[in-house]
């Protein structure tokens, strides 16, 4: 008897359509669809794709929690032994959907899940702790390389075989620490490493301390008088009552709000959702965090052309680097689409 596998793909890979079909509602079909064929071949006799779940990227991204539950319930009916997600390559929303599905399946069904993504896909940072994500090239041209590696990993997991290091198996490091017994005492390993470091020989630390990457600065704004400037904050400023329920810490979402018609933010209309500092001052006058009042003045004076009519907000408090990255990327996409030229980001 072979293992039963369900495959999850987006509307594009299902052949339904591109961006114009991205709001495609979740559905599930018997058997293989699209890249499932190659995957099924790679799985050989040991496992078989019994069904393919399909969902549009925009549909999924609009309400991730709701979409994940819907797709999960469809998958559950097929009683699978494992689920394969994507590969999503460098497609951000697709990757996030695969990640969210993997997380939900691992938690709810407790069965093996494997996905495939390009390391810079935001879905990686967000969900790499929840599942094995095979490293793929950045576009579908890498399908031929991605699928066999994903199939191999999946079979290993299905058979309960011991999985190796990221470099051996080709998955993206999950950031999970696993204990093991080494050949030597920790003291001996430490002195060995010390000797290597003293001699300038290569060594591998057993615990890499967190590191931070850098981005090259962009060119400055040359014509401020004709520029549209947007304001973004991690200080949690939102319309009074926090209509989208942005969490006070470890925020799982960001807010997008219009400031059309506002010359000044006051305690009557705005507040902070942030739980990471004493909110009294920001609640009394939200301009102290998001300077709408002076930005409007300067807009009127013609210092710059336009204050972007929407502001973006989230709570930087205890929010995972992965989430912050995801919010940043999504906000940047929208700002660019709206023709914004420069951004002022305020933090508490």
């Amino acid at each position: 008897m072979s293992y039963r596998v369900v495959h999850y793909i987006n509307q594009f890979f299902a052949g339904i359509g591109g961006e114009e079909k991205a709001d495609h509602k979740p559905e599930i079909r018997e058997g293989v669809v699209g890249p499932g064929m190659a995957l099924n071949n790679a799985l050989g006799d040991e496992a078989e794709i019994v069904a393919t779940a399909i969902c549009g990227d925009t549909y999924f991204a609009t309400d991730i929690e709701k979409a994940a539950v819907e797709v999960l319930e469809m998958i559950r009916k097929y009683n699978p032994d494992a689920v394969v997600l994507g590969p999503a390559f460098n497609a951000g929303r697709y990757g996030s959907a695969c990640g969210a599905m993997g997380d939900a399946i691992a938690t709810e069904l407790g069965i093996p899940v494997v996905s495939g993504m390009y390391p810079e896909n935001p879905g990686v940072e967000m969900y790499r702790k929840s599942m094995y994500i095979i490293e793929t090239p950045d576009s579908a041209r890498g399908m031929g390389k991605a699928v066999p590696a994903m199939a191999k990993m999946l079979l290993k997991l299905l058979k309960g075989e011991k999985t190796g290091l990221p470099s051996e198996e080709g998955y993206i490091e999950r950031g999970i620490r696993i204990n093991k017994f080494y050949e030597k005492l920790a003291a001996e390993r430490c002195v060995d490493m010390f000797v290597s470091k003293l001699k300038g020989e290569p060594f591998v630390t057993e615990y890499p301390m967190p590191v931070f990457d850098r981005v090259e600065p962009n060119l400055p704004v040359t014509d401020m008088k004709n520029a549209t400037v947007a304001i973004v904050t991690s200080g949690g400023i939102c319309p009074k009552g926090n209509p989208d329920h942005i969490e006070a810490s470890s925020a799982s979402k960001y807010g997008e709000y219009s400031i059309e018609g506002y010359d000044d933010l006051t305690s009557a209309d705005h507040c902070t959702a942030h739980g990471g500092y004493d909110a009294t001052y920001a609640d009394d006058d939200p301009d102290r965090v998001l300077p709408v009042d002076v930005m409007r003045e300067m807009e009127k004076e013609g210092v710059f052309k336009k204050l972007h009519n929407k502001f973006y907000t989230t709570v930087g408090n205890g929010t995972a680097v992965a989430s912050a990255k995801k919010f940043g990327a999504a906000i940047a996409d929208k700002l660019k689409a709206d023709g914004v030229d420069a951004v002022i980001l305020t933090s508490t």
Partner: protein
Amino acid sequence: MKLELHKVKVSKLAWGDKTAVRDGVLFVNKEELVSMLSEDERLAKVDVELAMPGESVRILPVKDVIEPRCKIEGKGGIFPGMVSDVETVGEGKTLVLEGAAVVTTGKIVRFQEGIIDMSGPGADYCPYSQTNNVVLLLDPVVDLEKHDHEAACRLAGLKTAAYLAECCRDCEPDRVDVYETLSFRESMHAYPDLPKVAYLYMLQSQGLLHDTWVYGVDAKKSLPTLISPTEVMDGAIVSGNCVSACDKNNTYVHLNNPIINSMYEHHGKDFNFVGCIITNENVTLADKKRSSSYSIKLASMMGLDGLLISEEGFGNPDADLIMNCWKAERAGMKTTLLTDEYAGQDGASQSLADSCPEGDACVTAGNANEVITLPPMEKVLGYPDEANIIAGGWDGSLASDGTITVELQAIIGSTCELGFTKLGAYTI
């Protein structure tokens, strides 16, 4: 300074009329030992039990483990400032009952003691599952103040360790290990082609009951200072800790510090090991800054090229470890760190409470939050209910059949930051 460790092998324990070692068996005169310990009026009841590797025995709550040693030649006595006078130790001859250990138990600060299983899966993680243990069950008099209780237990353990070795002082050793340290003047010029290195030895000192004693001085109240490795072998450093079991440095592991041993092995080949600097891990931030700066100042005065740093405990001491690391690196010394991790039961959390980019060479003794199931044992020495209270356990850790489900944190020495086990961790 030259110290010979005369090691007498102990592979079994038995009761006997006279405390002595014969053919690898350490016979213990229980009556004599109990009566000696009962002299301490802080203890209402004293009992002694024996536990050997492979037996279906669980010991909890364990406070400290000590190796029996005594001086047979040379200045001073074992555990100076504690059970002997404060004379400087570290030279001459010291008798070691290798393979034997004294284990003290007691409900001092109840959640800060540990577990030893003499067999089963827990034994793989615990260095003291492999030693032949003379277990002291110490009950204090009613309403004994906690510091007095801790001191009474600490003293009972050290006295027993000294007593056992003293009774065997005329034994022929199975092996003699020789350790030599040169005077400062000589060591600075020895091996001119090799890098000069030292060991920065961090001692738990967060507060009363979280203490380490050096020649009887509370490490918390002392500035960092120099110590010879052979002094450590003679018991100059004694644990007074009631902290998490997995990464408190027990007196046993101070005596047998595996970092010191390993550094001796590389001495003269890969580097010139010139000595140890001991420092503390206080709660007060000013103390942290002072101690780290002072330690690195000492290291700079010695003209060191490298410093190996070991930690004791987690959380607060992570700050000391990191300060020591970057201050040393910025003073031009290469560092390597030995720590353990608190990455959560799923291994997904941040392992250390602090970090710095200079800490690029780090060995860990494993994730203390990993959960382990310890099947029931036929015999429990101590108070099994403590499993529900112990750090690393939780209410419900102890099942009705005697099974205990705990984090490694509850097992004595399991993630020892002196590197006494083979455990480590890697990232998937």
